[in-house]
C-alpha cells in the first residue's frame, strides 16, 4: 500500500483525488490537507516522532497560508533520504510557476487539474507506486 498526502485548498479536488486514488487501488492511508502549512506540520510531526512518512504527495500550487512552492521549500526541514515523491496538480498556466516547481528535486511531474486517472497511473507505475494502467 502506498500512503498519500493530498494537499489542495479546494475540497472538491480533495474529494476527486480521493475517489480517483480509490479507483486506482493500492493507496492507503490517504490524508487530506487544505494548505501547505497543515501538510508540512504533519510531515514534521511524524518525522520527529519516528512515524512513517507518505510515499507520495499530490500537491496544489496556489493555496492560502503556505502555497505549494513554500511546501516544497519546507521539505528541506525533513531528514535527508525521506524519499517523498511529489506530483504537482495545478490549474496554473504560468510557465515561471511550473519551472519553479519542477526545479525541486522532489517533484516528479506537473499535471493539470482535474487529475487524469491513466496519466497518473502511467506516471506512478514505473516506480511501483501503483498498478500499471489498464490492469
Amino acid at each position, binding site marked *: 500500500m502506498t500512503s498519500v498526502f493530498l494537499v489542495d485548498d479546494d475540497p*472538491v479536488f480533495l474529494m476527486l483525488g480521493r475517489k480517483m486514488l480509490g479507483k486506482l487501488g493500492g493507496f492507503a492511508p490517504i490524508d487530506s490537507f487544505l494548505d501547505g502549512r497543515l501538510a508540512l506540520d504533519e510531515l514534521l510531526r511524524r518525522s520527529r516522532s519516528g512515524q512513517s512518512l507518505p510515499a507520495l504527495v499530490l500537491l496544489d500550487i*496556489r493555496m*492560502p*497560508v503556505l502555497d505549494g512552492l513554500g511546501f516544497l521549500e519546507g521539505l528541506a526541514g525533513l531528514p535527508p533520504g525521506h524519499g517523498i515523491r511529489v506530483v504537482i496538480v*495545478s*490549474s496554473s498556466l504560468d510557465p515561471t*510557476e511550473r519551472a519553479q516547481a519542477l526545479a525541486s528535486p522532489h517533484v516528479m511531474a506537473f499535471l493539470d*487539474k*482535474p487529475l487524469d486517472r491513466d496519466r497518473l497511473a502511467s506516471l506512478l507505475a514505473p516506480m511501483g507506486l501503483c498498478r500499471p494502467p489498464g490492469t
Partner: protein
Amino acid sequence: MQYLELVHNLTLLVALSLVSGFLHDRWGGRRGGCALQGLLFGAVSVLGMQRAMPVTSGIFLDGRSVMLSLGALFFGPQAAGVALAMVLPVRIWMGGQGALAGCLVSILSGALGLLFRAWQDPRQHPPRGRRLLLLGLLVHGAMGAVFVCVLSMKLFQVALLPLVTLYPAATVLAGKVLSDTMQRSHSEQQLRLKNEALVRSHEEMDRLIYNTSHDLRAPLRATLGLLELQEDPETTAEERGENHRLMRASLERCDRIIRDILEFSRSSRCSSRPERVYVEALVQECLENLRPIPEASRVHFEVDVPLDLSILIDQPCLRSILQSLLTNAVQFQRADEPRPRVSIRASEVQGQMELQVEDNGEGIPAPMQEEVFRMFYRGSHRSQGSGLGLYFARQMAQRLGGQVNLESSQGVGSTFTLRLPLTPEVG
C-alpha cells in the same frame, strides 16, 4: 587684435558648456554633481583670466562674468559658491587697480545668476534665448556700473563695446548650449521613467492574466472533474446530488471573479469624474449592501462619521473601496466572538479624508499583513471571495492619490485605514 584674447576667452566658454553638459548627463542627478560643476566653472574662469584682454595695467576683460552667472543659473548656489571660492582668491592674488572691481563683478555675476534661477528654475523651464539675453545684459550692465563707480568713466568707455555686444552674445550662445543639454537630459530621463512604468505595467498585466486564468480555470476544472464523476455509473444518486451542488458553487465562484474584475476595470478608469460625496451617506449605503452576507447579521456596526464630511471624488470608485473593506471586516469575524463588532470612523486629517474600518475579528499575523493586498491572495480557508477585493481597494486608492494600510494583531482584530485627498490631485 586685443579682442582676439576676449574671443579666445569666450570660445573657452562654449567648450566649457559642452563639458558641463557631459558632466550633467553623467553626474547630474548624483550628490556632489553641482559642486563638480562649480569646480569646472571655477577652473575655466581661472584659465580664462590667464588669457584675458588687457584694458590697462591691472585691469583686464575675460569671460568670468558669463561663466559665473551661467554656472549659478544652471547649477545653483553650491556651484556658484565653489566657483567663486576659486575665482576670488586668484583675482586678489593677481592684484592691480582692477582687483576690487574684478571681485565685485564676479560676486554680482553669481548673484544675478542665482536671482534668475530663483525666478525660473532651469530644471523645470530651460531658459530660452530672450531670458539668457536679459541675463547677459543685466550682468554686463552691472559690470559697466562697477567700471563707472569703482574705476573710471574712461575705462568704462573702452570696455563698452564688448560689454554690449560680445558678452551678452556669449551669454546667449553658451547658455543655449547648456539649456539644450539640460532639456535633452530631462527628456531622456522622462523617457526612461515612462519606459520603466510601461515595463512594470506589462509585468502587472502578465501577472493579472496568469492569476486570472488560474483562478478562473480552477473552478472550471473542478466542474469538469465533477462532470466526469457524474458520468461514472458507480456514482450513487446521493453523490450525484452533492456533485451537482459543488458544480453550482464552482461556477458561481467563476462568476464572482469575472464580476470583480469587471468592477475593477470600470472603477480603474473613473478618477476623471469627481463629484461631491458625503461620506456618512456612502458608508450607510455600503452597510445596506452587506445584508446578503450571512455573517453580517451577527455584527454590530458603529459608525462615527461627521454628517458634513464630504470629499470630491468619483463616487463608484470610493464605494467600491469601502465595500471591499467592509466585506472583508465582516467575513473575518471569529466564530467564537460573542459580540462581533465593526467600527467605521472618518475625519479630515491635514487635507485628507482618513477613514478607518476596525473589527474585532480574526486579525492577521504580521508576516501576512502586506500579503493581503496581493492579487488573488486568500489568507485562510474561510476566504470565500475572489481574493481581489483588498488588492483592488489598494490599487484604486493609489490611483486616486491615496493609500490603504493595515494594522492588525492576530486574535484581536484588524484596522484598515483609507486615506484620500479631499480634492482630486491634479495630474
